[in-house]
């Protein structure tokens, strides 16, 4: 019985040492980036609102624009 009380007390005491999850943020309503913009500067080649298309487009752009080993092969 004593052991149970001590264990419970230890668990309760240690619970205070845990860090609170930092989920509270002042802003949570940002529009996802893959939704695109309404301006005229969108890069063609992907579909606004399609996350997979947007991600693939950025990966291709990164490989084409910043990996010169692709060009010198």
């Amino acid at each position, binding site marked *: 019985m004593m052991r149970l009380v001590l264990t419970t007390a230890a668990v309760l005491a240690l619970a205070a040492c845990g860090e609170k999850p930092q989920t509270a943020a002042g802003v949570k309503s940002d529009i996802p*980036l893959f939704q695109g913009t309404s301006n005229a500067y969108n890069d063609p080649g992907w579909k606004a609102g399609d996350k997979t298309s947007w991600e693939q487009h950025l990966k291709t752009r990164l490989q084409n624009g910043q990996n010169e080993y692709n060009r010198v092969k």
Partner: protein
Amino acid sequence: MARMKFVCDAERCIECNGCVTACKNENEVPWGVNRRRVVTLNDGVPGEKSISVACMHCSDAPCMAVCPVNCFYRTDEGVVLHDKDVCIGCGYCSYACPFGAPQFPSSGTFGVRGKMDKCTFCAGGPEDNGSQAEFEKYGRNRLAEGKLPACAEMCSTKALLAGDGDVVADIFRNRVVQRGKGAEVWGWGTAYGSKQAGQPPGGKS
């Protein structure tokens, strides 16, 4: 998608400050505020190294942890952004950041410190993507336009890489393997006809 990440290759950076200029132009950053800057170690000494530094969009961002008004948030792509309507300009983030990323415009009366400004990974802020309001507060939202940060895309030597962390790591790994070290550095075999340099692994000399 993996997280968006920056990496600067110190072997390639030539301290041209093209990234700084591109950032200031693209985002119309006010005078006195530098979202990105080039730091040179052992400046003037043979073997000096330069790297381009801005907000690194940390996984466990210290600025986010210390902000008393919770103005920071993180996008699904791991980009750390903030809301200037919530920021009170206290400067705690500036003390917490190991990269010196948070900047404060001081054009107000009596040197009053304005709202914090920092690199957004060219992803704007909480306003509508690509809107005028977003541009005036945070600059261009290039990610929502299907583009990558202007600093990396403008880098003349491709020292600064930005984008999907997996692809960035892949490009960097390939680069290091290809260029080798010392006399194996990329281009030497081509330029000077060295027998041991510039040959692909397993290639004929």
